[in-house]
């Protein structure tokens, strides 16, 4: 049987408590369908980026992806300009949307692969590599757009992706959950997923076991880029316009979400469901603070306190693992400490 995931328990508890607290404090409006939809449609952008950061962290060796939001903006701008140059938005809305969606994914994949190749083949530290590519992506976006916002327009299918609902659930949120579920399954049940975690836990052992480390790392960063590309798609669909400096704060928030979700910064462990929950909780908390009408500086404070609290609790989990060493068999995921 799997061990109880302390982080998951904490996340679920917080999720429930925030919903109840929000309902009580706002006299019900917080739990109204409109607000739940509004909050759900805000989660995917940051959630996709956070899963990208998680993947990079899992790859180990100081893995991190700082280029996420820059990549997302580049995907939106580049793919938008490309699609508009081929199909007129008003005359061929479906073709335009399909081109735009594929374009976002392709740009994201290319950018992510670039990161992966630099890190795995040239042996550059991930934080330096992705810092560099972050600036590079931002620069390309500024040049392509001339520094102005690019209007993607609102062809019906694209508008639906950003603002439509299925059974009352925002389509963008469904997409996010779908992608997350798929990735969660891949990480848990495919050879790639197992190898990724193994490589992250102990690179040397992985290499001596004959894992193609370079390929695993490249794939991982490519996936992270693809997720950023999808985030770019959702941003464009929601806001009608895309711009190079959108979401500059997302960079740190995405890392915050990943760490809150119990992803190990030293590599080898991370669960997608925790990241999804952590992203949702951050949204619940910040919306709640906006509802109560507190200053946004308080929000930073609350997030910081939350992060520290999670680090604290995770630390306890480590202690328990240590105890478990003496009594029973070990969880293979907890090979460190």
């Amino acid at each position, binding site marked *: 049987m799997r061990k109880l995931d302390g982080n998951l328990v904490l996340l679920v508890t917080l999720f429930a*408590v925030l919903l109840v*607290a929000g309902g009580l*404090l706002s006299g019900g409006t917080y739990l109204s369908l409109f607000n739940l939809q*509004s909050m759900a449609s805000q989660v995917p952008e940051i959630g996709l980026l956070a899963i990208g950061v998680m993947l990079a962290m899992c790859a180990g060796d100081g893995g991190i992806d700082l280029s996420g939001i820059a990549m997302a903006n580049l995907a939106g701008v580049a793919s938008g300009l490309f699609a508009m140059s081929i199909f007129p938005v008003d005359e061929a809305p479906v073709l335009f949307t399909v081109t735009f969606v594929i374009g976002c994914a392709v740009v994201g994949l290319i950018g992510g692969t670039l990161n992966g190749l630099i890190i795995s083949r040239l042996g550059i530290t991930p934080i330096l590599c992705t810092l560099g590519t972050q600036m590079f992506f931002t620069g390309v976006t500024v040049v392509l757009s001339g520094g102005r916002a690019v209007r993607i327009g609102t062809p019906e299918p694209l508008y639906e992706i950003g603002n439509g609902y299925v059974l009352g659930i925002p389509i963008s949120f469904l997409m996010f959950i779908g992608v997350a579920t798929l990735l969660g399954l891949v990480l848990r049940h495919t050879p790639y997923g197992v190898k990724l975690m193994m490589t992250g836990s102990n690179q040397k052992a992985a290499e001596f076991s004959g894992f193609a480390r370079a390929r695993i790392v490249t794939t991982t960063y490519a996936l992270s880029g693809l997720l950023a590309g999808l985030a770019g798609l959702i941003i464009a669909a929601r806001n009608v*316009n895309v711009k190079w400096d*959108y979401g500059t704060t997302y960079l740190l928030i995405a890392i915050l979400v990943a760490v809150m979700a119990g992803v190990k910064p030293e590599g080898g462990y991370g669960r997608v469901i925790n990241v999804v929950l952590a992203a949702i909780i951050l949204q619940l908390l*910040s*919306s709640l603070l906006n509802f109560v*009408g507190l200053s946004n500086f308080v929000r930073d404070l609350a997030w910081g306190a939350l992060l520290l609290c999670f680090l604290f609790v995770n630390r306890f989990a480590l202690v328990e693992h240590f105890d478990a060493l003496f009594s029973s068999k070990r969880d293979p995921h907890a090979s460190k400490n």
Partner: protein
Amino acid sequence: MNQYLKTSGLFVAAVVSALGMASQGAIAQDGKSITTVVKISGIPWFDRMETGVKKFAESNPEMNIVQVGPATADSAQQLQIINDLVAKGTDALAVVPMDPAILEGILKRAMDRGTIVVTHEADNQKNTMVDVEAFDNSAYGAAMNVRLAECMGGEGKWTTFVGSLGSRTHMQWVGAGEENAKQHSGMVLVDPNNESFDDANGTYEKAKEILRKHPDIKGFQTSAGNDVLGVGRAIEEAGLAGKICLVGTGLPNPSAAYLDSGAITAIGFWDPQKAGMAMNSVAKTLLAGGEIVDGMDLGVEGYESVSVKQGPGDGLLVFGNGMVLADKDTYKDYLF
């Protein structure tokens, strides 16, 4: 398991009680609500606007009027706040957009939901009911440049700063400035449209770079509220106060020392306090089902007789007459 529950329980209890205390009075009030959303909170410009919003709230005690804004200058953060406010059911929004283009989607959704939307510093905003401007932007940019050219004697290198390239009003001001400078063949524009992000420190660093790159530069025209402070500091530290001309948007109080030393030639501004009141006044009129018409008195100084034009969307553009250009000798009349 017990460990987690205990720890999280404690934490949660603390958070809930803190929120409970904070929310008292914030949500309980009845009556219509107007929420002003600024680009960024905690900087002098929008602190001054908040005094106006508070003044308006005092004279309308039956309404729930507050100002909020993101802690960092990021259009995504402002977007999120507006999203939450619309969901919360605020009756009217008075927004100073960080980037009008990014907010089009949410403002449309807000209006579809029946929320009154008023904007400021965004005369290209399509999805707004009324955009309130303190003055005609081209006239303001040109007036600043006239003052700059006078100080430069009509010749020498000069450059411009904007808050961000997406900040439409800033681009209009420097654009009108450039137009005006064409009358003086001796004025050479170098490295235009530096982005300051309304951050005095960042602007200071950038201004130092420009002073190194162009040692013979003669003039700066700046746009965001904190730019004059950054550039002024760079000029003063280089020992060039009084030798280089600096005309830009700024507030009298923070700029006072630099105006006295000569590092800043003149500051142009409109009073954000009055602009905040004007926005709220328009929102109140719309909430009551009234109309905004040409020559109307908004009941705010500088907005006694506004001119109304058709905006880029279905909304209206409202211009007041609130331009002020102050220098060393005159700024004391406007201390705030």
